[in-house]
C-alpha cells in the first residue's frame, strides 16, 4: 500500500519543474527545478537521479553491515603521539632486556627444579592473592565509593589509609607485617599462645604479604570505577525485588567489570612481582616461600645473566596469563 505513494514521488521531478510561484503544491513539495543537469548539486528530488549523482550508496552490500555499526575512533594526533611515547617508555626497556638476554640459557634454567618450583609458587600465590583481594577488596571499594554520606574527615582519612601500603617501601611493609603477625607481634603472639599457629615463613605468609601489598591497587581501581558508575541501575534492580546480594552480583559488579578487571590485573601483576615484603615477612625458603622474584634477586647476586633470563620468564608467563585470562574475566566489555 505504500509503494504507489513512493512511485508517485519518484516520478515527480517533472511536476517539480514548474516555475510558477503560486503553486502551493510545488511550493511545499521537496522537488525543485534542475538548472544544469550534470552538476552534482542537491536540487533534484528524484531518488533515482540523486542516487546516480552519488557514486556509492546505492545498494546495501552484505559486508557493510558490520562496518557500519561502529563510529570512528577519532583520536587526535596529539593523543597518538603521547600514547606512542608512553608505550615506548614502557616497552623499549623490556626490548632492551630481551635483546641482551641469554636466550640460550633459558632451557637449562627452566629445567632447574628450583626455578620450576619458584615459578609454580609465584603463579599459585599470586592467583590466590588476587582472589582474596577480590573477595575483600571489592567490598572495601564499594564502601569507600559509597561513603559520600559520611563526614568529610573520616572519609578522606580512610581513603588515604588504604593507599598507605602503596607508599611504604615493601621491606618496611614486611616489617610491619612481622610486627603484627610475627610470633612476638601484636596479634601473632596471642595467636600462637592460643592455637599454636605461626604465620611467618609459611606460604600463607607469602599470600598475606602479597595481599597487603597488592590489594590497595585493586581497591583504588575498583573504587574509581564504582564512583563513575550510575547508581540508578541498582535502584531499578531493587524495585524488581533483587536482594542486596543479588544487586551486587548481577548489577553493580557487571557494570564496573572493566574497573574490576583492571584492578585485578594490577593486583595480580603486583603480587607476581612482589619481593621486599615477602622476603621480609615470609623469608625465602625454596618451594615454600621463595617466589620467582626472590629467586631472581638471589640469582642477581650470583649470575646476573641468569637473573635476567628469569625475569623474562616471569614476563612471558604474566603476559600469557593476562592474554589468556583477561577477556574471559570480562566477557561483555572487551570484544
Amino acid at each position, binding site marked *: 500500500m505504500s509503494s504507489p505513494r513512493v512511485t508517485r514521488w519518484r516520478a515527480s521531478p517533472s511536476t517539480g519543474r514548474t516555475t510558477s510561484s503560486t503553486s502551493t503544491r510545488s511550493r511545499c513539495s521537496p522537488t525543485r527545478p534542475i538548472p544544469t543537469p550534470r552538476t552534482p548539486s542537491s536540487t533534484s528530488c528524484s531518488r533515482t537521479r540523486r542516487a546516480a549523482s552519488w557514486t556509492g550508496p546505492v545498494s546495501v552490500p552484505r559486508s557493510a553491515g558490520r562496518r557500519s555499526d561502529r563510529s570512528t575512533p577519532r583520536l587526535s594526533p596529539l593523543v597518538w603521539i603521547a600514547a606512542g611515547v608512553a608505550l615506548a617508555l614502557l616497552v623499549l626497556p623490556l626490548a632492551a632486556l630481551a635483546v641482551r638476554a641469554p636466550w640460550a640459557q633459558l632451557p637449562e634454567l627452566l629445567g632447574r627444579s628450583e626455578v620450576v618450583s619458584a615459578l609454580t609458587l609465584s603463579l599459585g600465590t599470586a592467583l590466590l592473592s588476587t582472589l582474596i583481594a577480590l573477595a575483600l577488596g571489592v567490598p572495601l571499594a564499594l564502601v569507600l565509593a559509597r561513603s559520600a554520606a559520611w563526614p568529610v574527615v573520616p572519609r578522606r582519612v580512610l581513603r588515604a589509609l588504604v593507599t598507605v601500603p602503596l607508599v611504604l617501601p615493601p621491606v618496611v611493609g614486611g616489617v610491619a607485617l612481622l610486627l603484627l603477625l*610475627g*610470633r612476638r607481634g601484636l596479634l601473632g603472639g596471642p595467636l600462637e599462645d592460643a592455637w599454636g599457629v605461626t604465620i*611467618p*615463613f609459611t606460604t600463607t605468609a607469602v599470600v598475606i604479604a602479597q595481599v597487603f601489598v597488592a590489594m590497595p591497587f585493586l581497591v583504588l581501581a575498583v573504587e574509581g570505577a564504582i564512583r563513575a558508575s550510575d547508581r540508578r541501575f541498582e535502584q531499578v534492580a531493587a524495585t524488581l525485588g533483587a536482594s542486596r546480594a543479588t544487586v551486587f552480583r548481577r548489577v553493580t559488579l557487571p557494570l564496573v567489570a572493566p574497573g574490576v578487571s583492571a584492578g585485578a590485573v594490577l593486583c595480580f601483576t603486583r603480587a607476581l612481582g612482589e619481593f621486599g615484603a615477602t622476603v621480609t615477612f615470609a*623469608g625465602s625458603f625454596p618451594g615454600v616461600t*621463595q617466589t620467582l622474584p626472590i629467586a631472581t634477586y*638471589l640469582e642477581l*647476586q650470583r649470575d646476573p645473566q641468569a637473573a635476567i633470563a628469569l625475569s623474562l620468564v616471569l614476563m612471558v608467563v604474566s603476559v600469557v596469563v593476562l592474554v589468556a585470562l583477561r577477556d574471559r574475566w570480562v566477557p561483555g566489555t572487551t570484544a
Partner: protein
Amino acid sequence: AGGVDTVPGSSSAGTAAEEELTGQVTVFAAASLSDVFGTFETRFEELHPRVDVLVSFAGSSSLAEQIRQGAPADVFASADLATMASVEDDGAVSGSTAFTSNSLELVVPVGNPAGVTGLADLARSDLAIALCAEEVPCGAATVTLLDAVDVEAAPDTLEQDVTSVLTKVRLGEADAGLVYRTDVLAAGDAVEGIAVDGADDVVNVYPIAVLADAPNPDAADAFVDFVLSDEARGILDGAGFGAP
C-alpha cells in the same frame, strides 16, 4: 658487640649423636653467602640424610629483624659483626663464631675504559664511581679502607649492597667501584678486579650462631660445626672468602 668465639670447632658434638640427627634445620644466611651456603646445604644433607636443611637468604639486617620478631630459625649467618651484635643484644643469640671474612677489591668494567689503576682514581670527579653506602656492611668497610689510605672518594652513587655496585660496573655505567673479592670472582669475565694495597687490613668478618630458641638445636649445632669444618673452609676459599 657480643663476644665472638674465634676458635673453630669448639662445639661439642659426638659422633654417636650425629648418627641420630633428624628433622629440619632452618638456616638464615646473608644473601652474599648464597653460593657457598647452597653448596653447604647439599653437602650437609649428604652427610646427614635424615636432616633437611632449609636456607633462607636475604639481606643480613632483614634476617636480623625476622629473628627479633621470633622467626623459627636454628642458625643465623650474618655478613657483619654489627648485625649479629644487634641480635645478641636482643637475647636471640648468645655468642657467635666468626667463620670467614671478606675483603674489598677495586672493580672496573671489562677493558677498564677509564684506565683505573688504584684507589686514588676513586677521587677523580670525571669518572663515574659506585660505592656501597655507609649504612651497609660493605660500605662501612669501604669507609674504613679509604680512611686508611687517605683517599677522598668522589662517588656518584652510594649503593645499598654490593650487587648493585657490581651491576653498575658490569654494565659500564660506573667506571670503577669497590666490592668484595668474592663478588669479583663470582662475576667471572664480566668485570675486571684490581687488587689494592691495604685491602687485606680491612676485612669484613662473617659470624655464625645457633639461635637461643632453635627448634632443632642438635642439628643446628651440627650444621655450624660443618660450616666451621675444613671441608667448608675449602669451599669458602674456592669462592674467594678469607680466613675468619
